[in-house]
């Protein structure tokens, strides 16, 4: 049997070589197809290999390369968890590369994108394969820096520069938290290999601290509230296929890091960690989607919706921890499978939606929803794919988003078996939050699709849009088809995840693919089951039947006429509902609570010709309450320390001297 690493590591080498090649030829015309072609091929091979290793077709021996720290080396290993995340990474990589073949042609600064794109892919692959703390952190940082460079690709726009700055700060902060977490895990002996971390004994306090640090580090990368503020700035700033990778894949790599440490390396979880995760997950989900609902920039809307999905995933992980801590392996497996399934689903539909947003951007040059409209007539293929993505992300059957949400709800319904009263009561409440988030997500994507693709064009650019190139459409079509497939045949995905849950929580869901009609049964037949295939077939058949019968026996005549609109058809497209007006009812319900929204109406006195104005002011309360004070404090400290730059040499020397003496004193008193 062939060794999985023997395929993946050379592929990483190919990607890195492609990055170097891209630096050399970036300015030539053939650079774009060559680089994206190499990336697509490498990712596709990687995808195939990862699927093979997940299904047990490749062997999984670890490997140590003489790189990195001399006494540690670089450890690599692909187990079931890593194989699954390699599938996610390489699937996203393949589709983004294919999309890039078309989308990249419109790039006005290819030399700022091409070298970093393969490097970014290589970094994500390496994080997943790493089997020691040093390699992990190095790859993580590599991935962060490559994506940071991509965020800065269009650096002349002021907003992008700020986004990149905030991103760099948050990435640095996150890596520091990870560094501390691994430092704690490795212990004083410096056991950096994951195998020895796994075997080590540590006190509950150390484990707790490592878990919290991990939550901060990986959570900030994934976009967990309240560390999410950088995400809606940075993800949309990058070129669209990179946004798709960052939102759809890189956040998943962060989740991989969290699962690797908390479920695998830390051993037995503490019950309170599940409370933390559930609360954060539920809050993140609702907060993220409410922000998305208020947003009128299409790509930022998608970025905020990523935050929502990350919340859902973390809530699933929290449930799994809760069940695992109480020895309910089967329920923990259900929750973990649901979370991982949602990881997979989100990587599919979020990439798809970002590709769609990129296509709209290429066709119109606009990201502002209120300047778009009516694109369904001019971009038919893109609109079908985007619609599929919208239905999937809104958790509606028969698409894939529904299946994972459904499984999370099923896991929530197992909560009465938990022993602790607090968890018993908290879990259904979190379920309510997730239900609220799901319903709001549907509202959000009705708005996104309705305002951008339906109605009448609100600007000339939207009027003159054209369908995008074949590569972009192909990438979107493949992802849309996968969304539907994963939704109607979820059993195969669930069975594919079984080795992971077996390894991490010591239980599996019952095997699904053997069930009649391929329905999925999380626990037992009498308890709950769902069959996406039949639901899809029923809807398709009855819709077709209804249409056929009506057209055959009733009438099929059709006449085009002006819109009725209660007899007041108004020719101007400006009278349509915009993104802002569509969100207004929901803003009135949640606005004051979540955004501190204030509406003011300036009505000029009668006889005055000035226009009346309606202004809405909304604030990001997390930013105001958490980050603004921190930024203020840092600013203050920096201003104070600034004075140190203007001292004499004697003063500098005395500072160094005092520091030395102080350290010696500490040493003397310590022992």
């Amino acid at each position, binding site marked *: 049997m062939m060794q999985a690493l023997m395929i993946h590591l050379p592929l990483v080498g190919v990607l890195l070589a492609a990055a170097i090649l891209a630096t050399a030829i970036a300015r030539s015309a053939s650079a774009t197809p060559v680089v994206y072609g190499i990336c697509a091929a490498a990712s596709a091979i990687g995808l195939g290999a990862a699927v093979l290793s997940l299904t047990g077709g490749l062997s999984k021996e670890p490997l140590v390369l003489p790189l990195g720290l001399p006494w540690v080396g670089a450890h690599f290993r692909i187990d079931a968890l890593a194989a699954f995340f390699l599938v996610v990474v390489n699937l996203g990589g393949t589709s983004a590369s294919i999309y890039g073949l078309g989308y990249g042609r419109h790039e006005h600064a290819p030399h700022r994108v091409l070298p970093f794109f393969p490097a970014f892919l290589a970094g994500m692959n390496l994080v997943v394969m790493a089997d020691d703390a040093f390699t992990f952190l190095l790859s993580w940082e590599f991935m962060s820096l490559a994506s940071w460079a991509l965020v800065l690709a269009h650096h002349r726009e002021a907003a992008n520069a700020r986004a990149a700055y905030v991103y760099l700060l948050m990435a640095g902060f996150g890596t520091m938290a990870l560094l501390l977490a691994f430092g704690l895990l490795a212990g004083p002996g410096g056991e950096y290999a994951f195998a020895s971390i796994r075997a080590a004994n540590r006190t509950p306090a150390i484990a707790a601290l490592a878990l919290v640090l991990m939550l901060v580090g990986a959570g900030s990368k994934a976009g967990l509230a309240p560390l999410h503020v950088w995400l809606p700035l940075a993800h949309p700033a990058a070129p669209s296929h990179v946004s798709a990778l960052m939102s759809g894949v890189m956040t998943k790599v962060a989740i991989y890091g969290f699962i690797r440490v908390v479920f695998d390396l830390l051993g037995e979880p503490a019950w309170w960690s599940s409370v933390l995760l559930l609360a954060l997950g539920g809050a993140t989900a609702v907060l993220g989607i409410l922000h998305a609902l208020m947003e009128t920039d299409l790509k930022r809307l998608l970025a905020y919706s990523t935050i929502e999905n990350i919340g859902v995933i973390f809530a699933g992980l929290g449930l799994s921890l809760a069940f695992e801590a109480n020895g309910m392996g089967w329920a923990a497996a259900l929750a973990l499978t649901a979370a991982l399934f949602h990881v997979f689903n989100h990587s599919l539909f979020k990439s798809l939606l970002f590709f769609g947003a990129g296509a709209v951007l290429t066709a119109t040059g606009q990201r502002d929803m209120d300047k778009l409209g009516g694109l369904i007539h001019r971009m038919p293929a893109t609109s079908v794919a985007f619609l599929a993505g919208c239905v999937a992300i809104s958790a*509606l*059957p028969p698409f894939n988003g529904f299946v994972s949400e459904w499984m999370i709800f099923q896991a929530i319904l197992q909560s009465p078996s938990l022993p602790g009263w607090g968890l018993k009561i908290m879990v259904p409440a979190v379920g309510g939050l997730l239900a609220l988030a799901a319903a709001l997500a549907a509202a959000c994507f009705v708005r996104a699709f*309705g305002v951008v693709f339906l109605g009448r064009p609100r600007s000339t650019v939207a009027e003159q849009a054209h369908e995008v190139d074949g590569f972009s459409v192909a990438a979107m079509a493949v992802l849309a088809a996968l969304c539907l497939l994963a939704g109607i045949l979820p059993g195969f995905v669930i069975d594919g995840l079984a080795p992971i849950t077996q390894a991490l929580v010591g239980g599996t869901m019952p095997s699904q693919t053997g069930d009649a009609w391929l*329905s999925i049964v999380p626990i037992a037949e009498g308890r709950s089951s769902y069959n996406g295939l039949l639901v899809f077939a029923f809807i398709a058949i009855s*819709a077709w039947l209804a249409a056929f019968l009506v057209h055959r026996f009733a009438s099929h005549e059709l006449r085009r006429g002006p819109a009725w609109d209660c007899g007041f058809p108004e020719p101007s497209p400006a009278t349509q509902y915009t993104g802002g007006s569509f969100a207004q009812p929901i803003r009135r319900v949640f606005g004051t609570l979540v955004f501190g929204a204030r509406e003011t109406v300036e009505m000029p006195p009668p006889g005055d010709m000035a226009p009346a104005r309606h202004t809405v002011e909304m604030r990001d309360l997390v930013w105001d309450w958490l980050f603004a004070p921190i930024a203020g404090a840092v600013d203050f400290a920096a201003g104070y320390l600034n004075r140190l730059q203007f001292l004499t040499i004697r003063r500098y020397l005395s500072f160094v001297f005092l520091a030395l003496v102080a350290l010696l004193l500490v040493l003397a008193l310590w022992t």
Partner: protein
Amino acid sequence: MDLILSFLIQAAQMAVVLALAPLLTGFVRKVKARLLRRQGASVIQPYRDLARLLRKEVVLAQNASWLFRVIPYLIFAATWVAAALVPTFAGGLLFSWTADLIAIIALLGSARFFLALAGMDVGTSFGGIGASREVMIASLAEPAMLLTVFALALVAGSTQLSTVAAVLATPEVGLRVSLAMALIALVMVALAENARIPVDNPATHLELTMVHEAMVLEYSGRHLAMIEFAASLKLLLYISLIACVFVPWGIAAPGSGLAGFALGATAYLAKLAVGGFLLAFFETSIAKMRVFRVPDFLGVALMLSLLGTLLLFASRSL
């Protein structure tokens, strides 16, 4: 043999919901008219309306897209499939395991998703107002509904509708304050979801507070017929759902003889009649609320369902 029988039951159920839905709508309208001391149209008027609409040609707005023409059939299909999975007169439906209660709610959610898109398609202000209000209502009603389902599922230990009905029909369940709260919440959600009176008025056109009617304003002919049919089906579905969960007596068990089915059918008709009458009575005795009071109304439903779920833990078992 069993398979054939359950297949027959399933087919009969699909036909029954289709046949009864307009009748229920007509019945509710008739009762409302009588309560207002009006004569009212005949109870079979909805059938006539549907037939008339089906025969008429469609007048499509100039910039309506293909989606606008597909959506009526999608909505009809999704609602029909959902309605076919709620036990009405007999349990043990052949395909009941296809979709549980959560999936049924999600199916209705799909129908609403597309209906709201249809409202946005032509690009008129009325369509937009309807769609935006509909999603606002749905964003509160859906979690309330799901939490109600949680309360039921935690009692019954299953989200499968036939199992829930069977468990709740047993005397061991007893009186539970959580179930009472779930019932109230479910009724409130049902009123909102079916665009009934305190939330929306199914009988208006040309009023700024309308929601459902504003979304379907541009539809005509067979498309409108499909949407009206789907709306009737949805009303039938909610009354059947409430009846099958909270008044589960009389539903024929799988394998019961002809007498059992006859009893089940009679009981079901009686439940529909009572449900329809109560709805009409409630609608005539209350005024429609301002659209921005609706979140308060649904917030109460949400709160009740959450409270119902919490209070479950203070009851006898569980």
